[in-house]
Every structure is written in C-alpha cells, then in structure tokens.
C-alpha cells in the first residue's frame, strides 16, 4: 500500500534518510534546514538505531562525516549556505578520498550572512567546486517534496556506486513547503564490509587507509586522472533531466529546482497566449545535461535561463549551446522568489520581443 | 510616610508586556493595563502611588522603557543618576 503523507521538504528528506537505512547523521543547526536535525533527533535513533549527533560546528560535522564514511556506512549531513562554505575543505578531502556520503545544502540567500529566504546562489560552489582542487560532487536538484525524499535513496545509491559524495542542492522554500509525498518503505540498516573501508583490519586482508595525501606530484596526478575518469563515467551514465513540453517548443526556459516549477507555470501561461515554450530542468547539475540542451538548441529560437541568483547555471547552459542560439538570463537574488507572471513577462520581452 | 518619594514614566509604546517590572517592584506599584499598544502588547501601568523611585522596574525592563524620578524631603535627589550602578542594595526598603 502506498504511504502518502503531507510533509515539509526538510522533514521528507529526514524521513527518507531513516528509511534509506542511513547509519549516521552529523549536523549543526542553521535556518532554513534545522528541521532535518530536529526531525532526526526526535525520530531516528528509536526507530532504526541510527546515530544522530549535533556537532559543535559545520566543520566538525563534515569531518565526522569524513571519518564515519570511511567505514563504508551510510553517512549524511545537511546545512545551508554559510555552513556549506565552512565545509568546503572537508568536502574536497571526502571527494579525493572517494568516500560515499550524502550532503544536503538547503540554499538560502547570500552572500555573507544574507537572509534565510530561499536562494540558488550556491550553484557554482556545488557544481564547479567551492573547495580546492579538481573534484566533482554528484549534484541532484529536487523540485518537489517527493524528490526531496526520493533523491535521498537515489543519492545514497549513487554515492556507493561511484564512491563519490552526492550533494542534494535544494533551497529554503522547498525545505519549508509541504506537499504530498509517497514514502518508500523502510529499508533494513545492514552493514556490508567494503574492501576499501576502515573497519578494523582482519587477518584476511591488508590494512586499509583513507587518505587524500600524495606527496609526489606524479602520484597525485594519477589520483586525479583516476578521479577524472570516474567523472567521465558518471557523465556517461547519470545525467538526469526533465523536458517539459520541449519537443514542439520555439523557446526553452532552463531552470533547476523549485524555480523550474515556477517556470513551468509561466510556460503554461505563455502557451495560453500562443507562445510555444518548453522547460528544460536539469535534475543532475553534475553531470550536467550539456548534450540534451545542445540538441534542443538546434530546434529553438532562443533560450531563457532563470535562476534565483546573479547567473550561475546559465554559464553551463551557454557552454552547452555553444553559440547556436542566444541564451538570455533572468535572475532574482538575495532570497527573492520570482513568480510565474513575472517570468512570463521577461519571456515575452527578452525572447519573443513582445513589449508588454 | 517615606522620606523619599519616587515616580516613574513608562513608555507604553516600548513596552512588550513582559511583566518583569511588576515582579521587580517592591511596592507592587505596577500592573498590566487592559489596553494594548500599537505593537499589540498589554502594556504596564502604575496602579499605586507608593513608588519610592528605587529604579528596580527600570533596571529589569528589557526595552529601556521606564524613566524613574526620585526626590527626598529636602528636595535633593537621593542618588546621582550616574551612580545608580553603585547604589546600595538596601535602597528598596529605604522608605
């Protein structure tokens, strides 16, 4: 039987962590994602024995994740923008040491202390790499509370498939809003010994070491080459996107997360006016659906990218389009959420050239 | 009758009705009004004329909303404003 519930995005995500058999969560309060820690503090341990620990800081959290993920268990943390910035060193370590784990950024409006209102200003940090060195997180951007739940399960699967940290990049609005969500069934919390993990060295295998250190540049380059190969593999297999009414579209809006839904409404309004607009929503921000967008660029007149920032994903869209058609940008910043009418207006002005 | 006479003025628009001043007043001079101010709080008013100007209410008010006046029979202020920090603890029973 389907288990339907009305839940906040943050809570659906937390519930999904419990059900996905997550072994431990380490986190630190920050609005607008504190519900994750709060929900887990109430629910998790009693139900599955999952460890939930409020760390003394985000830096401690991410390094607890680093330590615990080294054992091959399912580990997770979440935070919001300033907290994520503090985690960048740890994330770079985790990525380099190839530790599977799940990170969540409930993006708020920045920069600086900013506002707790929703934002998408952390795209660059998440996708290009806010930490030092060449590494990639697998980045999933949910647009519904359902996806807030589903991507937790999927995120853990991808993390272990590729031994790579997965980041769910969402925003304050999606974290705070409620929708119907179909919860997946509780999965057993079971522990599998992984051959690379540090679990106490038995006689039967050589010792394992979790590290990202290689003093010799040549060795460090090998590590990098290995990582890059893995990233190419991920690019080949794991691109996820949603194309809404794109096939007959004259114009396409690109947007991720909740904004994509707002744009979908805008596109519907446009179609009512006879303007054929589709919405292309990248779901995996890394790997980014460059080819998909490039193909659509052959069919449309122009593309409008909409984000809650000053223009970040638009660079990837432009890289995908590679000059084939104009790519316009519309952004709201600092926690302001655009509404469908407003986007429709921009669409008419910038793309269709209809002054309103 | 006390040798010292006090009085207070409450800035009712500042007041948030926390009632800490009521609790702090050794004279029980204060009480919640039945009016709300523009912020929507039931502000505080003086209900008895027995204030000694001990400053307790003002000291505990988080909004800095109470001004305290005080006069001895000789007409001299008992304590300099600048000195309220160092005034004796027994001022409350000083009437």
């Amino acid at each position, binding site marked *: 039987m389907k288990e339907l519930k009305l839940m906040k995005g943050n809570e659906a995500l937390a519930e999904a962590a419990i059900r996905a058999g997550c072994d431990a969560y380490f986190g630190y309060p920050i609005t607008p994602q504190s519900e994750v820690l709060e929900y887990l503090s109430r629910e998790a341990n009693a139900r599955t024995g999952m460890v939930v620990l409020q760390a003394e800081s985000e830096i401690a959290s991410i390094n607890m994740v680093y330590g615990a993920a080294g054992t091959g268990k399912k580990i997770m943390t979440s935070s919001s923008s300033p907290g994520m910035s503090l985690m960048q060193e740890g994330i770079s370590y985790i990525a380099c040491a190839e530790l599977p784990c799940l990170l969540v950024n409930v993006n708020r409006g920045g920069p600086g202390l900013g506002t707790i209102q929703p934002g998408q200003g952390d795209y660059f940090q998440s996708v290009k790499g806010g930490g030092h060195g060449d590494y990639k997180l697998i980045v999933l951007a949910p647009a519904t509370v359902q996806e807030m739940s589903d991507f937790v399960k999927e995120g853990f699967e991808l993390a272990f498939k590729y031994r790579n940290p997965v980041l769910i990049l969402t925003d304050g609005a999606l974290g705070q809003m409620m929708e119907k969500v179909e919860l997946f069934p509780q999965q057993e919390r079971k522990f599998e010994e992984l051959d690379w993990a540090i679990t106490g060295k038995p006689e039967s295998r050589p010792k394992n070491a979790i590290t990202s250190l290689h003093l010799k540049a040549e060795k460090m380059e090998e590590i990098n080459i290995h990582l890059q190969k893995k990233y190419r593999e991920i690019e080949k297999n794991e691109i996820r996107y949603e194309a809404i009414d794109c096939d007959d579209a004259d114009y396409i809006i690109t947007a991720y997360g909740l904004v994509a839904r*707002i744009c979908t409404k805008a596109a519907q309004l446009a179609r009512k006016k006879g303007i054929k607009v589709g919405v292309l929503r990248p779901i995996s921000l890394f790997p980014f659906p460059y080819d998909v967008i490039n193909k659509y660029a052959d069919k449309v007149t122009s593309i409008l990218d909409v984000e809650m920032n000053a223009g970040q994903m638009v660079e990837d869209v432009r890289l995908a389009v590679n000059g084939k058609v104009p790519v316009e940008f519309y952004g709201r910043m600092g926690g302001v959420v655009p509404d469908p009418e407003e986007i429709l207006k921009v669409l008419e002005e910038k793309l269709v050239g209809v002054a309103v | 009758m006390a040798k010292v006479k006090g009085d207070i003025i409450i800035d009712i628009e500042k007041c948030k009705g926390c009632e800490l001043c009521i609790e702090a007043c050794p004279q029980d001079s204060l009480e919640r009004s039945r009016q709300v101010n523009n912020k929507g709080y039931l502000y505080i008013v003086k209900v008895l004329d027995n204030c000694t100007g001990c400053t307790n209410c003002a000291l505990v008010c988080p909004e800095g909303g109470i001004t305290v006046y005080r006069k001895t029979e000789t007409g001299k202020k008992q304590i300099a404003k600048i000195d309220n920090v160092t005034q004796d603890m027994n001022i409350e029973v000083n009437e």
Partner: protein
Amino acid sequence: MTEEIIIAGFGGQGVLSMGMILCYSGMIENKEVSWMPSYGPEMRGGTANCMAIISDTKISSPIISKYDTVIALNQPSVDKFEKAVKPGGFLLYEANNVIHPPTRTDIEIIGIDATKEAAKMKNTKIMNMIMLGGFLKKKPIIEMKNILEGLKQVLPERYHHLIPLNEQALKRGMEMVEEASLVS
C-alpha cells in the same frame, strides 16, 4: 478544480495551520496540494502567511502571485494582498483586526469579527478556525468530514479533546459568512 489561496496575519494567529488543515484534508480527498509558508526568524513575531493550493491536477508552481482567495487576519495583510486577488476572487478578512476594510469592487469581500466570536467561545485560539469555516462556506472545495479529519492530523494528540470546539468554530464561521453575504 484548482483553488489558489493565501492566508496571512500575525505570527501566532494560526495562519500556517489553516493552510495545513486545508492541505491535509485535500489530500484525504485525493487532491493535489501544496503549502508554502513565509518563514523568517520565527522567534520574533512579525507577520506570517502561507500559500495553499488545492487542485484536481498536478500543481506546477507552488509560488503564485495572484490568488483565488485571500484570507487576511490583520490590517497589513489586507493592505498587502487585496490587490493580489484574481478578478472575481474572494477576500475574507477578520473584521476586529482590520480598521480600513478592503475596497475593490471586482471581487467578493467579506469581513467577520472572528476574534470577538472566539472570545465568546472562551478560546481565542480558535479564531482561525472560524475564519476557515467562513472560507469553506464560500468555497466548499472540501467536505466538512474531511476537514475534521485533516484537523486531526494537524492538531497534536493532546489537543484532540478540543476537536468538537473546533468543529463548532468552523460551523460558526460558516454561519457568519452566510449572514455577512446576506447583508452585503
């Protein structure tokens, strides 16, 4: 059917739970629902609102700027959202808290003094349920029995003894809106 609503007032007036009850009960009727709160540094009062959408079809944007219904529980909410009612839409306001009532003529406007009514019922907290009843009178998008079911989900267990009172409040709200409609 798609009903797009915003409910706005002071923090503490219960605007968030009004929206939640609608969504829970909508869900019971197998409708699509979405609830989007304004959120802020919660501890320090201020205003609050939530958008609720109840629909027979998939909801694209949970964020909208024009509403079928605005429920305003204080003056700032009337001032801010009156213009956001779709032409032909409905604006319900709490008359006790609103000194300058809305004035648009292309929408239906009803004000009821739910605060006074709640005081009469000896529980000021149920003001919001009176308002919700009022809304449901005009827009019977969800059956009463499901609303009560939704209420159960929102209300913590320890308050379930208050459900009859809440039901009464809902009904009272309906009556008040009916009366007000007759007057206007």
